[in-house]
């Protein structure tokens, strides 16, 4: 009888010991290395592809002014990288042999980082906007041209080339 009791006690102890192991929390781990590549990029979007100044009486309209042209700049660059938006004219405003200096074609801009005012040039790119680091700044600018009695008649054209750079 005594032997049976001891056997039972030992069996219970073994069972309890075993169950504590069996139901202890078990964990397993694994890992994954993640890599994301972010390269330099630049994207420029202008709200208009062409601007036209209709003929007008210089006394009534001494200054041609365009509708605002929206500018969207998207750039990915290094931290503090210099994002630069410039504009360079193809030449003076030209109508056959007659010309109007492109330097008289000026702009007024709004938006963070945009140059508030400036004049076009075909000899040197002019800075329209400048930013530091990656981002998506937006703004707009209007172009103005004096309407002078001295101009020869004609249809004058010029192309303005905008360049966005992000190092």
């Amino acid at each position, binding site marked *: 009888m005594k032997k049976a009791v001891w056997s039972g006690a030992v069996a219970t102890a073994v069972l309890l010991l*075993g169950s504590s*192991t*069996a*139901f*202890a*929390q*078990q*964990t*397993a*781990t*694994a*890992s*994954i*290395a*993640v*890599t*994301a*590549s*972010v*390269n*330099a*990029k630049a*994207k420029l979007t202008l709200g208009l592809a062409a601007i036209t100044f209709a003929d007008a009486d210089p006394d009534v309209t001494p200054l041609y002014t365009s509708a605002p042209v929206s500018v969207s700049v*998207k*750039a*990915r*660059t*290094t*931290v503090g*990288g210099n994002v630069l938006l410039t504009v360079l004219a193809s030449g003076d405003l030209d109508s056959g042999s007659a010309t109007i200096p492109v330097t008289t074609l000026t702009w007024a801009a709004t938006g963070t980082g945009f140059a508030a005012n400036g004049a076009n040039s075909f000899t040197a790119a002019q800075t329209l906007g400048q930013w530091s*680091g*990656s*981002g*998506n700044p937006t703004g707009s600018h209007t172009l103005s041209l004096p309407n002078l009695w001295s101009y020869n008649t004609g249809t004058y054209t010029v192309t303005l080339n905008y360049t966005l750079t992000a190092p």
Partner: protein
Amino acid sequence: MRGPSLHWAARPAFLMRRRTLTAVLFVLIFCAFSRPVAGQTRNATLNASINGLARLSLSSAAISFPDADPDTVPSIQATQGPITLTAKARTSPNGSITLTVQANDHLRSGVNTIPASHITWVAGGAGFTNGTLSATSAQIVAVWTGSGVRSGTQTFFFKNLWSYATGIYTLTMTYTLSAA
């Protein structure tokens, strides 16, 4: 000359064989037709130890997000496609099994960082759930009840923004399978 007085060893060999065969036959018949005299039972205890256990395997040890134009690909899928996760666990009846993942840090490229939360996943498989990675707390990938082998997939996506500084960003995701 043959008689009972003869010594056993001196008997002819054919007599020896016959007696032996008779004895063997008797034993066999006895065994074949014997029945227990009374009902008897004996108990044998079989102890099988089945302890808690957890095992996790992943189909890939690395994933990568290629560079892309944020305007055309605002959410970049990992090049490796869906990752298969297999969780094997032994636990108590109705015991909870949980699979979590946590990033060791934000995506980092030198001093530049992108929040780990810009990585999300779409899950497939019973018990698996969609989620967003975190560097501060473990996020639940899957939950089950009771022992078993379960498999599912995670397809990872990276939020692609213009605001990121250029660089190669890395982090490590650590998965933990817990069987309570």
